[in-house]
C-alpha cells in the first residue's frame, strides 16, 4: 500500500486516531487519579556490604533490601505507626542504586527506600520509620551471637573436651603405673647420671691400676678395688634404669600426643568462636548510614512518561486501525486520483448508465 493511500484514508478517518488518543489519555488520567499518592524517599548506605563480602566462615549475611522488604520489619513499623503490616508492605519499596561511573570495585551499596502515603507528611513519617526500624533490625540480624554459636557447636565442644579428658586420663594412668611423670626429664637426668658414673668408674679403675703399679699397701689396693666395684655396680644399675625409661618413652610420647591433639581440636573451636564474634571489627551498627533523610519526591517525570506512553499508545492504536481500514477497505479510485497519478488532465468522465 502506498503512503498516499494511507494518508488519504487517514484524512478521511482522522476521527479514529483522535478517539483512541482521547481514550488513552483518559485512561492515564484515571490511572493517576486512582493510584497516585505522595512519595518520600531516603538514601541509605551500607558501608561494608556484608552480603557481598560474607564472613570469615563464609556464612551468608542478610542484605539490607531483604530486611526492608521483610514482614518482620513491616510488623515493627506498623507497631510504631499504629497501622497494619500489610499497609506498610504495600507502600514501601527499596532498590539498590547503581554505582557511579568510576566507582571503586568494593564501593558500598547504596539503597533508595521510598514510601507512599496519603499526604507528604505521612510519607516522610513512614519512610523515616522504615529506615529506623530497618537499621535496627539489620544490625540485630547480622550481629554475631556467641551464645548461639556455642549452642550450635555444643556437641563439638563436648566431644573435644571428652577427647582431652580421655587422653589425659590415659597419660596419668601410664605415668602413675610407671612412675613416668615428666618422663623425658627423667630420661635426660638418668642419662646424665649414667655419664657421671661412667666417668667415676673410669677414674676408679685408673686409681686401682696406679695403686697396683706402685706396690702400695694391700689395704689401699683392696679399698680401691671395692670402690671400683661399687661404682661399677652403680653404673650397671643406672644403665638398667635408663634402658627401662627409654623403653617407656615412645609410649609416653604417643599418649602425650593424643592429649595435645585433643587440645588442638578444642583450640580450633575456640578460634572459630572468636572469629565469628569478630572482636577486632567495628560495631555493626556503624555500617548503616543514612545519606539523605526522607524527603518528598516529585512525580512530574512519572506523569510525563505515563502521559507520553498514553499518547504513543493511543496514536499507535488509532493509526493501526486506520492502516487496517486502508488495507482491507480501499475506496475506488476517482478521476482526480487517476489524473494525478497518470500526470495528465482528465478529458471526460463517462457517466454510469445506472446513475
Amino acid at each position, binding site marked *: 500500500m*502506498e503512503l*498516499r*493511500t494511507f494518508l488519504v484514508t487517514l484524512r478521511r478517518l482522522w476521527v479514529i486516531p483522535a478517539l483512541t488518543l482521547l481514550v488513552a489519555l483518559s485512561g492515564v488520567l484515571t490511572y493517576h487519579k486512582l493510584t497516585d499518592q505522595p512519595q518520600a524517599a531516603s538514601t541509605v548506605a551500607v558501608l561494608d556490604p556484608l552480603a557481598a563480602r560474607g564472613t570469615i566462615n563464609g556464612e551468608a549475611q542478610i542484605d539490607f533490601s531483604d530486611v526492608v522488604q521483610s514482614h518482620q520489619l513491616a510488623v515493627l513499623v506498623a507497631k510504631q505507626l499504629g497501622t497494619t503490616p500489610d499497609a506498610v508492605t504495600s507502600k514501601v519499596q527499596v532498590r539498590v542504586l547503581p554505582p557511579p561511573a568510576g566507582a571503586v570495585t568494593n564501593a558500598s551499596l547504596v539503597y533508595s527506600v521510598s514510601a507512599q502515603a496519603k499526604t507528604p507528611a505521612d510519607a516522610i513519617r513512614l519512610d523515616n520509620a522504615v529506615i529506623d526500624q530497618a537499621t535496627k533490625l539489620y544490625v540485630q540480624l547480622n550481629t554475631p551471637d556467641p551464645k548461639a554459636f556455642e549452642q550450635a557447636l555444643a556437641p563439638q565442644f563436648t566431644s573435644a573436651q571428652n577427647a582431652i579428658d580421655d587422653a589425659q586420663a590415659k597419660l596419668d594412668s601410664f605415668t602413675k603405673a610407671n612412675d613416668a611423670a615428666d618422663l623425658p626429664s627423667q630420661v635426660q637426668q638418668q642419662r646424665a647420671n649414667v655419664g657421671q658414673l661412667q666417668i667415676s668408674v673410669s677414674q676408679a679403675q685408673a686409681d686401682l691400676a696406679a695403686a697396683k703399679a706402685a706396690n702400695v699397701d694391700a689395704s689401699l689396693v683392696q679399698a680401691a678395688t671395692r670402690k671400683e666395684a661399687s661404682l661399677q655396680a652403680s653404673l650397671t644399675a643406672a644403665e638398667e634404669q635408663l634402658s627401662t625409661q627409654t623403653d617407656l618413652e615412645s609410649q609416653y610420647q604417643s599418649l602425650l600426643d593424643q592429649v595435645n591433639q585433643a587440645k588442638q581440636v578444642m583450640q580450633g573451636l575456640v578460634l572459630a568462636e572468636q572469629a565469628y564474634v569478630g572482636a577486632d571489627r567495628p560495631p555493626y551498627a556503624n555500617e548503616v548510614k543514612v545519606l539523605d533523610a526522607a524527603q518528598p519526591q516529585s512525580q512530574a517525570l512519572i506523569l510525563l512518561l505515563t502521559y507520553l506512553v498514553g499518547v504513543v499508545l493511543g496514536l499507535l492504536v488509532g493509526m493501526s486501525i486506520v492502516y487496517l481500514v486502508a488495507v482491507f477497505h*480501499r*475506496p*475506488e*479510485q*476517482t*478521476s482526480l*486520483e*487517476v*489524473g*494525478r*497519478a*497518470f*500526470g*495528465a*488532465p*482528465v*478529458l*471526460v*468522465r*463517462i*457517466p*454510469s*448508465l*445506472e*446513475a
Partner: protein
Amino acid sequence: MRNISTAGHSRRTYGDLVSELDFLPEPVGDSPVLETFRLLAIQVERMLPQLERRSILILSARPGEGRSLVASGLARALTALVAPVVLIDADTIGSGGARNGAMPTWPVDGALSHAVNAVVSEPHPRLAPISKFQVAAGQRSQLQTVDDITRALDGAAANGAVAVIDTPACLSSSLALSLVGRVGGVIYVARKRVEDASTHREIRGQLDLLGAKVLGVVFNEG
C-alpha cells in the same frame, strides 16, 4: 450484451447509444453518455492540428476499462467534426465490443481494406464518413499485427482520415505500447474501481520513455 435498465427508457447498451451519435440530425443533449463523447471529440478535434499524425491510440492498464467504448464513441463523435474517421479495432485479445455491447457491430469497410491493400499510391476518393478496420486475429505475430495496423494508418492518412485505434490492455499485451510511436496522440482510459495508483504512474513512465504524446485521461464511471 450488457443490458441496462433505466426508468422510462427501453433497455439500451453503450453500443446502442454510440450508434446514435452521428445519425441524429440535431444534437439531442438528453443523454449524458452521448454528450460526453461529443465533448471528447471536440477536445480531440482541437488537439489534432498540434499532433504529428491524425491518429489517436486508446489504451488502458487492464481489460474491462472501456477502451472499445471510448474508441467507438470517439470515432462516432469525431465523424461530425473531422470526417472521414477510421476506427481500427486492434484489440484482438479483449474484443470488448462483441462481449459487452460497447462496440457497435459495424461491418468491416471494404473500401478501406482496398485502400490499405493498395497502399498509399492511390488514395480512395470516397471513403465513408466512418470506416472500421478489423485487425486479423488468429496465429499472427505481433510484428505482423503492427504491420497491418501501420498499413491501415497509412491508408487512413492517405485518405485524409482521422484514425482511432482500440488496443489490448497494457498489462495483457505490449501491442499498445509498440504502437505509441506510430500515432499522433494517446488517450488513457481508467475505470472507477479499486486500483493502485502506482499502476497509472508506471504506464505513464513507459509512455514517456517511448515518446508518446499523451492527450489525457478518460475516466469511465460505468
